[in-house]
């Protein structure tokens, strides 16, 4: 192991992988390459209005773990034959194993070029700096980031309009019954929600809708999803299909190259999926570290998401399928969880909403029931008097 391990991307996934290599006892060189100048930071708080930045690890910890953190440097190419990466400062860095953890970038559809996006600390600083009482924010997209930003903006006193192309919010991953709770809350907080609306164009001070309406704004932000950052993998000839294709160990077709986090597409319950998830990025970073050191076990963690809007907390374990029925469990004080079973009668997802962390225990238990494929009688799911934790004890 002469050249060591190189990690491209110093986000949640890459940083976790770097530390995990040391926790696993790896003693070779570990180089973590980040394009941004900042000390690696957590992205979830960017839209939630907390103090920024929240660093993933204090600077001293990289030194203590003997991790070489290179900031404000980009990888410009991967030479798979020579097993080396080229950097934007002109240097060449050889590797024994390479982890691509480049994440995803904010998407903009044609016509939205003038809109800002929220992905990085610099993006957040610019947007939050402009949100003050009386300012007008227009958000394109009623997904997690757009809605969290809307809630943050209302708290800062700004006026907010959210424009969503679907007929409801968070349609991609959140059951309709839960999305309705958030919709009502945003309206009650004074957010102007415009659903089933297309965007014809954006200029720096307005969004023009498909029906000709013009939404005047001081700041326009598009939160319409993310595209995986796969350029390096494509140029290196690796398979890419909306994400760098990896196997159950997170290995690409090249035995020396792994990919993890938002940039990869991995096997999950009989299909291949790509997630944009803070927790999954961490879990996969840790798994890829072990896999690069030779571990053969498959990545098998249950997807987990959360969102905070006002004092409402949403948590999801597994991947909800809007086309299948849900089993509802009411937890009181307007908190509830929606469970879903697969064809085999095993729990496949659980989604919950409530004040603060009211649904956290249920989602955590559900996550473990999904992961361990524990059979769960539907009547026990709906009955709030039954402690589901007992099912884990078998």
């Amino acid at each position, binding site marked *: 192991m002469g050249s060591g391990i190189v990690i491209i991307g110093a986000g949640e996934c890459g940083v976790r992988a770097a530390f995990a290599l040391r926790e696993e006892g790896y003693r070779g060189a570990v180089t973590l390459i980040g394009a941004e100048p900042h000390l690696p930071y957590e992205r979830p708080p960017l839209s939630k209005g907390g103090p920024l930045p929240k660093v993933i690890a204090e600077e001293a*910890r990289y030194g203590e773990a003997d991790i070489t953190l290179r900031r404000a440097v980009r990888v410009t190419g991967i030479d798979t034959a020579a097993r080396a990466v080229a950097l934007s400062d002109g240097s060449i860095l050889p590797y024994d194993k390479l982890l691509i953890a480049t994440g995803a970038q904010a998407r903009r559809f044609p016509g939205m070029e003038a809109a800002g996006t929220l992905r990085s600390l610099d993006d957040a600083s610019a947007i939050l700096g402009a949100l003050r009482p009386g300012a007008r924010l227009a958000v394109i997209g009623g997904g997690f980031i757009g809605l969290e930003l809307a809630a943050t903006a209302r708290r800062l006193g700004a006026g907010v309009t959210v424009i969503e192309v679907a007929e409801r919010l968070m349609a991609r991953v959140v059951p309709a019954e839960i999305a309705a709770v958030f919709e009502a809350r945003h309206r009650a907080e004074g957010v102007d929600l415009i659903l089933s609306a297309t965007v014809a164009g954006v200029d720096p001070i307005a969004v023009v809708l498909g029906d000709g309406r013009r939404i005047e704004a001081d700041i326009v932000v598009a939160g319409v999803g993310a595209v995986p950052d796969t350029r390096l993998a494509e140029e290196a000839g690796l398979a890419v299909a909306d994400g760098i294709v990896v196997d159950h160990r997170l290995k690409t077709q090249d035995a020396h190259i792994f990919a993890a986090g938002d940039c990869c597409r991995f096997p999950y319950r009989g299909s291949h999926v790509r997630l944009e998830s803070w927790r999954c990025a961490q879990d996969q970073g840790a798994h890829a570290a072990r896999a690069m050191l030779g571990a053969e076990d498959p990545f098998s963690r249950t997807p987990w998401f959360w969102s905070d809007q006002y004092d409402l907390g949403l948590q999801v374990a597994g991947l909800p399928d809007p086309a299948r029925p849900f089993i509802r469990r009411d937890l009181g004080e307007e908190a509830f969880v929606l469970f879903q079973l697969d064809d085999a009668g095993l729990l496949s997802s659980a989604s919950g909403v409530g004040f*603060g*962390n009211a649904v956290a225990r249920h989602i955590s238990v559900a996550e473990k029931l999904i992961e361990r494929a524990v059979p769960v009688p539907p009547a026990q799911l709906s009955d709030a008097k039954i402690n589901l934790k007992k099912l884990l004890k078998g």
Partner: protein
Amino acid sequence: MTQWIDACAVEDVEEEDLIRFDHDGRTFAIYRSPDDVFYATDGLCTHEHVHLADGLVMDHIIECPKHNGRFDYRTGEAKGAPACINLKTYPVKVEGDRVLIALA
């Protein structure tokens, strides 16, 4: 002299569970283990200051309700990312049906 504070009744905490206890501007978590022993730690997760009271207790582990930070509540030891700073723990004793914690 150690100051023992009456935190709660034994029956207030279910086995393999925890409750929140606030005292003098500070917040704590009181645990009852599956083998019926009581423990106490600071109430807020060291990762992002989320209260642990909504978290899940499994055996001797408390899991933060937000980001899956996990701690051994007997020792306060952080059990892996994203939590890397240990939880402070406090001595606990049971007198009759009351649970008392020692605050320095």
